[in-house]
C-alpha cells in the first residue's frame, strides 16, 4: 500500500487456453493489487468479463505464471504473464 492509502497495482498479461471452461473471457492485460494471488487475478478476470465460473468447474483450470507452474494460491510476485489453461484429461 502506498503512503496515501492507495493500493499499488500491477498489470499482468493473461492468456486463456480453456474456452470450454471460461467461455468468452478475453485475453488481455488485467490489473491487480500487488501481492495478489492467481485466485485474485481470476476474480478480476471474472468481473471484467462479467463471466463467473462455478466452483465445481475450477478444478479444470491450471496455471502458468511466467511459464512456471502455479496454483490458485500462488502469489503473483514480479509476474508479467499468466496462462490460464484447461487441465489435461488424457487422450
Amino acid at each position, binding site marked *: 500500500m502506498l503512503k496515501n492509502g492507495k493500493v499499488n497495482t500491477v498489470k499482468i498479461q493473461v492468456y486463456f487456453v480453456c474456452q470450454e471452461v471460461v467461455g468468452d473471457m478475453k485475453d488481455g492485460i488485467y490489473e491487480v493489487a500487488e501481492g495478489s494471488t492467481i485466485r485474485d487475478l481470476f476474480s478480476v478476470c471474472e468481473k471484467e468479463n462479467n463471466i463467473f465460473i462455478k466452483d465445481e468447474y475450477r478444478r479444470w483450470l491450471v496455471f502458468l505464471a511466467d511459464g512456471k507452474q502455479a496454483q490458485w494460491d500462488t502469489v503473483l510476485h514480479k509476474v508479467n504473464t499468466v496462462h490460464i489453461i484447461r487441465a489435461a484429461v488424457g*487422450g
Partner: protein
Amino acid sequence: MFGYVGKLLFVDLTNRTFEVRDLDEKTAKDYVGGLSLGAKILYDEMPAKTPVFAPESMIGFVTGVANGAGPFMGGRYTVVSKSPVTGGFNDASSGGTFGPLMKRAGYDAVFFKGISEKPVYVFIDDGKVEFREATHLWGKTTIELEKAIKEELGDPKVGIASIGPGGENLSNMAAIMNDEHRAAGRGGSGAVMGSKKLKALVVRGNHRVQAHDKDAVVALNKEVAEWHKGPVAPVYEMFTNHGTGGAYDSSIINGDTSVKNWLGTANDLTEEQIKKPTSQEQDKLFKIKKYSCHACPVGCGAIYSVKDGKWPIEETGRPEYETDAMFGSMVLNGDVYAINQCNFLCNEYGLDTISVGATVAWLMECYNNGIFTKEEIDGVDLTWGNADAIVAMTEKICKGEGIGKILQAGSVAAAKHFNKGFEALVHASGIEIPQHDPRWSPGLARTYQYDPTPGRHVKGGLSIHYGHQPPEVRYDYTNTGERDVNGVVYTEALYAAGFCTMSDFGLPPEIHIKFLTAVTGFEYTPEEARNLGIRSYTIRHAFNLREGLRRKDFTISDRIIGVPPLKEGPTAGVTVDAKMIADNFFKELGWNLEDAVPTKESLERVGGLENVIKDLYANA
C-alpha cells in the same frame, strides 16, 4: 450368465478347425473380460516362450462384459497377443462397434493360433464359423478392405477387425483397425495377425446379451448423464465437440505434450504451430460430422474431409490428440494438412500413429544432428518442421518403400539395423512413448516402464491427472505406492469391463463396479474389487515373467524422466526418481523389489492365480 454370451471360440488357422468352449462363471467373475480375461486365456493356452510369429503363438479378440449390455461408454474390445516389439505381453483396445457386434455374433472372445496356408478371413455369422479365402484381399488398405468385404457379403453392417499392408508386412507398428478409423493400435498385434495370414475377423449375428438388472443399468446411465451435465461439464463439452485433440494447445503450454522428440518446449513452436493443430481449429476447416462409438453419449469421434491443400482426402477420421502431437509438436510441425495426411496414411495402411510419428521424430533428430545424411534417407530433407518431408517419410513407412522398409520395424529396430542413432531413441522396453510427459506427471514413468504392456498412457497408475498436483506433491516421490496401486486397480477393472479410456472423467468414480454388478449379477466387496484389478495386472505381468522378463529387462529412456533435465519450460529442472516410484509400487503390491516377482503370499492373497503360483513356486 448375465452380460456374457458364455462362449469362447478357439480357431486353428493351420488346420482350419475350431473349438467352442464354455466360459465358466468363476473365470468370468475373477477376470471379467477385455485385457484381463484375454491375459488369463493367453497365459493358460499359449506355451511359454513361444516365438511371436510361430504357429503356436496366439492372438485373441476379447469383448468387455459391458459391450452390448447397456452401460454407457462400455463399447471397447481388446486384442491380446505377445508383442513383436517388446517380446512380452501385449494388449490394445479399440472402440467403435466391433466389440458389441462380436457378442452379437455369439462369442465373448475369439482366439486364433496356427498359420493359414493362404490369406484368409474368418467370418462368424451368428455363431457359425466360416473360413473365407482372402488372397484377392491381401494388399488392400483397411478402408478398401472393409468396403470389399461388405460388398462380398452383401451386408454393410458386418463388424470387421482387419489389418492393412502394415500387418501383412509384419511391421512392429502394425495396428488392427475396425470401423474404418478405430485402431487397436499399439504393440504390433497387427503383425501377429499378418503372420497368421489372417486378413480380417468379420462378425455379425443376432445374439443379445441380457443384463442381470436392466433397471439398475438404466439408473446408472442416468447418473452418467447427470455427471456429464455436472462437475465434468466443461470437459464433456470439449470431448463431445472436439474430441481428444481439443486439449492439444493447452497440453503443449503446460508441459504435458512433448516437443521436438522430447528435447524441446512450447518455446520451440510458434503461437500458430501450437494453436492450429488443436481440434477446435481443425474442426473449422475439415469437420463434416461427428460420430460415437457404441453406447457412448460423449461421441468424441468426427469425420473430416480435406478438400484443399496438397493432400486432399475425401473422408478420414479426425486425428486424435496423440496423432496431432506425434505429427505436430514432436516434429515442430503446425501444418494440419500434413497431420491429416499422416493420420490418413497410417489408418489406411494399418499402422500405429504413435509409433510411426515417434519414428519419424527419431529420424528427424538424427538427420538434424548429422547422424544420417540426406542420401541415406532416400533424399528426404527431414529438417525440423518440414511438412512435406514428414508426409513423405510417413508414406515411405506405410508403404514399406526404401528406408521405410527398415523404419516399419520401429525406431529401436531401425537404430539397431543402422547401428546408429541410439542417443535419439525414446522408448520403453523397445516401444515408442506416447504424448504425456513423465517430467510433468511423474507417475507416468512407472506406468511406461513397468506396466506389463509398456509405453502406454492409458494404463493405470498415478495417472496423467497427477500432473495437476502442486509441485510439492507430485515431485515428492516418497509415498506414491498406495495411490499408484489404486490407479492400477481402477483402470484394470475399467478396461476388463470394456469401458472407454475416457471413462476416467466420463464416469463418476467407482461406478464401473456398480455397472459390473448390474450387468453380471456378480457382487464385489471392496476387497474383491481391489483384487480384481490387482489380479488383472498380475496375470499380464505373469505372462512376462514366464517369458523370462524381470525388472531389469523393463527399460525407459533417460530423456523422458529428465536425465538430463530440460533447461526451460514448466518442467525445467525436473528429474524424476523413477526408481523410487517403482519401488514404492512393488512394495505396495508385496512383490520383490529386485526382480519384480510377486511373492507367493501376495498371489495367494489376491486369489485366482493358481497357475501363476504353480509356475513360479512349484519347485521352491
